[in-house]
């Protein structure tokens, strides 16, 4: 138990939201909302500094009884998987507020700040909750402010987009809720008491059928949020119609809730099913990568183009997650951060252009470099980061994901690599049509370059792209132990699956395994690694999946 620092982190924005409601002056609203968002930013930097990079479990834990009759507790904690996402959230929220105050939001600024700060509470809460019920509450809290942000401050078919966004997400969420309740009931059956506490739920014994159904429900909820192909069609609409800040938060953080959900819930709760589902998810991820890039290529609308590029980038993240090895998952988490920074920056840049020209049609532009050189230079930099140029952030994530995928299934990596070609293709083609060539519309000659506020918004993001590209080690090392711990349960299931197929294939396959005893891929090495991870952690000492026979003994007896 530490001094409630995570509670402060989550609820400070809510306090700020209440405060801005009492203001009437527009300037004061923007300023105070921005200042209120700086406090969680500072707290998250403190957490990053104080975080013990060798500890795999939750840190800064807070746990209180909430509704003891149902085993619901107020349980918060932060580990290597959520730490950096928390930091990303606080950074992007502050930058969004800073940017939006510069003229992007021209009506109802008070309500805008209110919803944005409430959204921050929802996002941070969902990232820090260790209780499944608490998580679900925050998960739903995120939805409402975003619905209003799109519906009130959006453009074009904003109501359609907002409703579509909520409906898609709700369909998944409700199925997940059913699965959560079933899981808790199973926990009661096994342990004799109701509990929504995540560490306990990891150990609930389930039959294969039960696990499969529940995994499906969780996976669908998260896959919609990611969004994975083919449940992605809410995304282009929501992104295109949302205000700039909404797009930044939506792409930068909310989509990560889906991938985070896989890492935190779907996979560790049901590792056996996750291992079985690897081929399916690798295939869907690869389709998403290629499909998203191809569809992005011929979009006439800049924002829609960036939205579809998210489908492609998030495909990479899913690919890394379902590589189910340290390289893949580290890469996936890193790519979540990269996507937040790079795509967030892209949406900001598109927003700045829209503010000047009130259009996002690519054909309306051309030859912009001449009139807005600073803007063009920044756009180039961000584009290269998004295209995964080595030396910038995107490459680190993409390479680790490709590595993890290659180790899991080289054909998947071979297909996915086409994504980096197509990514360069649509980005450079867009850039060429917007920035290069002669000026085709006279109005583009007179648009003004970026002002100080806009440069101030972009500078931290540019700095992050460089830093994360050149020196990722301190970030990756902090996520490493937690990722290893998460993978421990998965490795055991992998060993099981391999042994099952070896038994079916007869003795030949097993001899091969033994020959490669030193290989990190062999069953024995995986088991050893898994056992080491197990001994190193406290709460994870029980088996996450107790089938009909004790697992470790069976495996080691071979």
């Amino acid at each position, binding site marked *: 138990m530490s001094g409630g620092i995570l509670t402060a982190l989550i609820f400070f924005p809510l306090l700020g939201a209440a405060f801005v409601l009492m203001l009437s002056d527009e300037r004061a609203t923007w300023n105070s909302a921005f200042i209120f968002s700086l406090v969680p930013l500072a707290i998250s930097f403190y957490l990053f500094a104080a975080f013990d990079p060798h500890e795999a479990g939750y840190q800064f834990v807070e746990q209180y009884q909430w509704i003891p009759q149902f085993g619901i507790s107020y349980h918060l904690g932060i580990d290597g998987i959520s730490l950096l996402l928390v930091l990303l959230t606080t950074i992007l929220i502050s930058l969004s507020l800073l940017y939006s105050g510069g003229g992007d939001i021209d009506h109802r600024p008070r309500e805008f700040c209110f919803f944005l700060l409430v959204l921050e509470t929802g996002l941070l809460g969902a990232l820090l909750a260790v209780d499944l019920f608490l998580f679900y509450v925050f998960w739903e809290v995120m939805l409402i402010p975003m619905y209003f942000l799109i519906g009130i401050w959006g453009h074009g078919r904003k109501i359609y987009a907002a409703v579509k966004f909520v409906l898609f997400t709700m369909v998944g969420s409700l199925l997940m809720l059913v699965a959560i309740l079933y899981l808790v009931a199973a926990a009661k059956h096994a342990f004799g008491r109701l509990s929504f506490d995540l560490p306990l739920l990891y150990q609930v014994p389930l039959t294969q059928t039960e696990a499969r159904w529940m995994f499906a429900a969780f996976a669908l909820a998260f896959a919609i949020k990611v969004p994975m192909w083919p449940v*992605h069609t809410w995304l282009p609409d929501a992104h295109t119609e949302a205000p700039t800040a909404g797009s930044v938060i939506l792409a930068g953080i909310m989509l990560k809730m889906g991938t985070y959900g896989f890492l935190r819930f779907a996979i560790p709760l049901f590792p056996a099913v996750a291992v079985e589902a690897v081929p399916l998810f690798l295939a869907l991820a690869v389709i998403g990568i290629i499909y998203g890039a191809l569809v992005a290529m011929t979009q006439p609308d800049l924002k829609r183009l960036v939205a579809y590029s998210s489908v492609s980038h998030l495909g990479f993240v899913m690919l890394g997650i379902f590589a189910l090895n340290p390289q893949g998952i580290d890469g996936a988490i890193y790519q979540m951060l990269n996507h937040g920074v790079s795509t967030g920056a892209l949406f900001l840049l598109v927003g700045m252009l829209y503010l000047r020209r009130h259009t996002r049609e690519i054909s309306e532009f051309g030859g912009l470099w001449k009139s807005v050189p600073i803007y063009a230079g920044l756009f180039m930099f961000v584009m290269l980061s998004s295209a995964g140029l080595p030396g910038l952030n995107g490459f680190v994530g993409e390479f*680790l994901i490709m590595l993890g995928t*290659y180790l899991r299934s080289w054909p998947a990596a071979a297909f996915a690599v086409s994504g*980096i070609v197509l990514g*360069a293709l649509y980005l450079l083609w867009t850039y060429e049509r917007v920035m290069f*060539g002669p000026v085709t519309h006279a109005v583009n000659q007179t648009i003004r370059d970026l002002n100080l506020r806009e440069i101030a918004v972009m500078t931290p993001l540019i700095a992050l792209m460089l830093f994360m590209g050149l020196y990722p*080690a301190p970030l990756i090392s902090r996520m*490493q132990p937690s990722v290893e711990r998460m993978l421990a349960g998965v490795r055991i299931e992998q060993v099981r699956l391999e042994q099952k197929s070896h038994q079916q294939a007869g003795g030949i396959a097993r001899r091969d395994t033994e020959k490669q005893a030193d290989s*990190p891929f062999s069953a024995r090495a995986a088991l050893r690694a898994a056992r080491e991870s197990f001994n190193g952690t406290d709460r994870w000492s029980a088996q996450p999946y107790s089938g009909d026979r004790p697992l470790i003994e069976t495996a080691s007896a071979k």
Partner: protein
Amino acid sequence: MNVEFAALALILVFPALGVIFNLFFGARLGRGAVNLVGPGVMFLAFAVSTWAFVKILAMPAGGALYCPLWRWIEAGSFHVELGLRVDALSGVMVMVVTGVGSFIHLYSVGYMAHDEDYARFFTYMNLFALSMLILVLADNILMMFVGWEGVGLCSYLLIAFWYTNPEFAYNGRKAFIVNRIGDAGFVLGILTILSALAHHGVWTLNFVEIQSHAGLIGTTAATAAGLLLFLGATGKSAQIPLYVWLPDAMVGPTPVSALIHAATMVTAGVYMVARLNFLYMLAPDAMAVVATIGALTAFFAGTIAIVQPDIKRVLAYSTVSQLGYMFLGVGSGAFAAGIFHVMTHAFFKGLLFLCAGSVIHALEGEQDMNKMGALRKRLPITFWTMFIATLAITAVPGFSGYFSKDLILEGAYESGHFWLWLLGAITAGVTGFYMFRLIFMTFFGESRVEADKLHHVHESPPVMTIPLIVLAVFAAIGGWVGLPEGLLWGDAFARFLSPVVGNFKPAVEASPAMLSAIATGLGGLGILLAYVCYLRMPGLPVIAAWRAKALYDLLLEKYRIDELYNLIVTRPLFFISDQVLNRGVDRMVIDGAANGAGLVVEAGGEAARRAETGNVQHYAFVYLLGVIGIVAYYLYLVIR
């Protein structure tokens, strides 16, 4: 012997400082500051490189300098440390890059003297030098890839330097995308090596460590990795099938063509193969592919160069052709010969482009050789230096290209590739023809310069001609470090490189003098033919072109490979993107399904609303039906 040498980092720091300075302060501080800093940082890097190179020379054979930087990426057992390493191979490369690069930077001061965007130009040039030096100095393959993609980026930026011209912008993008296709292969190649080693518990990307564990990489993995990495090389070094970007890259400023698209960047693929020689030695099949592609490209590009009217395009296809020679060399196992040709080619081809730039500069942008001629007297320095470079590229005995090309052809023959050797020897004749055609059309014969340009044709300023003279000296004598065995100091170059790339082991006995005589004779024949066609009987080429119109057009239109790629790759891709996926799958099928589900719910609600009529009798009737139903059900249960 490995010695830590922290000053190696300075070779990168100087160009990096140049980038920062020119980017942020260049336009503000003016032309003088940029002209000082842009080339200045290159000369500083050159000085440090020379220092390092002298240290290497002083060390016993096989020595290397290294400079560890920082731990870059780690995930699980995988980790990469950034570090620099100069051994004989990278020493030669770093000298070429900084040496030739410095003089081309200096030349640019004159060439860009009338361009407003000089600060941006030198920012890109310094950034290019930085990336190229990262590529060359990297001690591991992933860091090499950082430089590898970095030079591709700078190439893109510089091709599209005059961005207001849409064609230039297109050509820049084309270069980047084609290179990215190769790079995708490169990444898979890296992953193949990494995973082959990881299966044995070795996680490394460091060249030295890969070499010491090379035995763990099986033949299959080595072949796959070798071919995938070579796909990257075909992109960067403009070989079949990915060479199509290089000729179009010539729309960039001419110093860029000299530095990036002739002397340094495009040789990166050759350097990569030589650097990974131990890997390629494990995979004879991959080697054979490299050699074959190299020989085919050399011949194929040479034939296109014969008919091109644009002076820079001739040189561009000539570069593709010469790069083919280099791959023929390294693919035959004659790694030192390949690198030797990289070096001599940097001298003479860099020089050829700078001379072409000087001509174009004098003619105010004219690049069509049909509008040149008789410039010998008006541009004397340009003429003589270009003539020396031409002698070098056509491998006239004594000039630099002679020694390196001979070693390559000898290597090809002695490794048993008779047909590839023959193709290479014939290409020597083709080279002689198109190069002397260029010289004759530009500097000899009747003047065809447009009248209004004629009177202000003038020799370039010293800042441009000094680099020409310096490079001409090297183009002439630069090959003397690799003399035939038995003559004076013999092949000192190969002996210097052998600790890194090994010694060439011939499979077939041959007489080097005989092979040399055949190639040189064919080269002379080509020169003679050019002399006849363009000086003695100037009408002859026209008649020949008319007689063999189909062939002539095919060559002029570059075998229509661009059109072929458009037809089978680009157009289908855009069709699938726009018509199939965007309009079809995304909007109709997937969104249609989602909206359809919405409509079903809506229709259901509508039906339910209709039932609520508000009519009490209606409700009573339904109620009655319900009661009857329940009663009937219970009756059924009782009776059963």
